């Protein structure tokens, strides 16, 4: 098979989220419309370290659990030297070193103690630790592009495979709740104390959450197990507009969707479902909603869903957590409802999915927007579609 005809297959999925551990549990609870948000946050419930790694912390635990589930489903036990591994996160293992740093500031901890835990500060340290437990991937990247990081990572992994740089690539996103993000988003007045209500006229903000989503991507010529889905296109753009706010008309988001659908050799009419970023913040939903409506102007508007009500916003991990839902939706031929929606914001002219229901899904458009104006979009397709 030539590189030109090589498809990027998704062959394994793994999840740790505030809705539980494992892909099936994650899907079932989202499909039932349950929310894992408690007092405004989506915390993962782990009964102590699962892997006997007290010194590595929660981000490592989440990552290893999700990575193992994904690799097992793909029929792999470890990554080979000619495989790739991309990790996306915004804060990595901040829960380990930030506490020690604060103690150091309060003169309750020594410089030596700080230096011992400080090896966890660089985000790449987490990637290196995970990599050492899952094989010897020679090609790696640590992406920290805020909320778009994991979607960017999936796009990059897809390009590596299509360009023949690797045959398979494990792509993961991971995030832990920390005082930096919780207090930081609070300072920006973006947090909601109740489960988020994306696209609702009474939406009050976002729910920070934690977790990990991992996907195994493989070139179509090396797939051993059944391909669950194809990543058939990607779009990567930047607003260049504001440090924390999206472009009011969603210009960059629109361009990312256009790029993703164009690179899939599809038209907007062929998109069956849009899985939106839909954080539940006033500006994000308005900007993204306008961009989606404009993108499908003149085409059949597909149903649009945000699942942030269910699992919250896991920042750097949100792209892969939601990608798992997209792949499962293709496999199960089911559209998920957009939780928390009562009265749709009249300024957002979308067909928001109000119930989870069976539906013929051929291609899904997945959106992500992030601080810094970073936009990323992916198209997930049924395997038969892309292969034929």
């Amino acid at each position, binding site marked *: 098979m030539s590189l030109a005809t090589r498809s990027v297959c998704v062959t394994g999925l793994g999840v740790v989220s505030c809705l539980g551990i494992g892909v099936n549990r994650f899907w079932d609870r989202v499909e039932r419309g349950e929310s894992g948000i408690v007092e405004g946050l989506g915390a993962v419930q782990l009964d102590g370290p699962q892997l006997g790694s007290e010194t590595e912390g929660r981000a490592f635990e989440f990552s290893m659990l999700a990575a193992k589930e994904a690799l097992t489903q793909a029929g792999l036990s470890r990554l080979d030297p000619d495989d790739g591994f991309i990790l996306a996160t*915004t804060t990595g293992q*901040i829960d380990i070193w*930030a506490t020690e*740093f*604060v103690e*150091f*500031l*309060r003169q309750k901890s020594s*410089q030596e103690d*700080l*230096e011992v835990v*400080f*090896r966890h*500060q*660089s*985000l*790449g*340290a987490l*990637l*290196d630790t995970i990599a050492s437990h899952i094989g010897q991937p020679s*090609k*790696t*990247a*640590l*992406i*920290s*592009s*805020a909320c778009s*990081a994991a979607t*960017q990572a999936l796009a*990059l992994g897809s*390009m*590596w495979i*299509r*360009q023949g*740089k690797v045959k398979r690539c494990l792509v993961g996103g991971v995030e832990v709740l920390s*005082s*930096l993000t919780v*207090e*930081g*988003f*609070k*300072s*920006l007045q973006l947090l909601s104390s109740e489960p988020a209500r994306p696209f609702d006229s009474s939406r009050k903000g976002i729910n920070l959450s934690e977790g990990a989503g991992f996907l195994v991507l493989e070139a179509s010529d090396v797939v051993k197990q059944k391909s669950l889905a194809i990543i058939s296109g990607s779009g*990567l*753009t*930047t*607003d*260049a*507009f*504001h*440090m*924390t706010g999206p472009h009011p008309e969603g210009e*960059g988001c629109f*361009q990312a969707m256009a790029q993703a659908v164009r690179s899939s050799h599809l038209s907007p009419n062929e998109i069956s479902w849009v899985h939106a970023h839909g954080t539940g913040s006033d500006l994000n939903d308005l900007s993204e909603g306008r961009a989606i409506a404009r993108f499908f102007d003149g085409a059949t508007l597909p149903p649009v869903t945000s699942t942030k009500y269910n699992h919250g916003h896991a920042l750097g991990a949100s792209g892969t957590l939601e990608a798992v839902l997209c792949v499962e939706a293709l496999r199960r031929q089911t559209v998920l409802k957009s939780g928390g929606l009562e009265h749709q914001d009249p300024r957002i002219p979308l067909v928001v999915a109000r119930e989870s229901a069976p539906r013929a899904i051929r291609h899904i458009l997945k959106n992500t927007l*992030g*601080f*810094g*104006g*970073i936009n990323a979009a992916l198209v997930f397709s049924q395997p038969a579609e892309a292969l034929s």
Partner: protein
Amino acid sequence: MKMVVVAAAVSHDEDVKSYVTQAAFRKASRKMTLCFDAMKKAVSSLADIFTPERLAAAGLILNSGFGEIEATGGFLKGLAENGVARPIFFQNSLHNSTTGFLAIQYGIQGPVFTVNHRTRGGDEVLDISETLLADSLCEFCFAVTVETVPPEFSGPTGVDREGAAVLALCSEATAAKYGLKVLITPDDVLKESAHHPRIELPLTGLKSLFRYDLITRLADRLT
């Protein structure tokens, strides 16, 4: 696709002192200012090529071993000592805040990535740049490395120099199309990488990224 370097620049502390008084940089971190200055030098060295339209279509990939540690430290310090979470520190603590700032300043609307992988970051930035150029997602891509570390972290990080380095990259075909002088070839990049093995510090597993980072070494040599 062969990726080549067509412009390079570095910026150090003494280059950015004048920025402190400028309103546009009032809320900018030192990383942002250093990168802005290095980018300015690289862009102005090919001013007729880097028109606003071409900059809008360009890519930007930034590496920093320790990310926005300065703002993160400031945020945590304020929270611990005064119970005050300052929004500007939080905003700047996100590791992609410098790329967001640069994208706004230079009107870059193409693919923008942020990478934080200790000693591997520079190599990863060059690889991502090559990947994006090969996929025709951008015609030009700016590869940036920056490091600034406040005094309280200089021990743990092992960073003893600060600054920013920028390489402007494109395909060999693009350089020929615009008649651009190629400053360094892909083979030279590989040789540079092979001749500088990474050496880790024994205590922390970290080392001075700015001194050894591949982008910085290349930019240092070319400027």
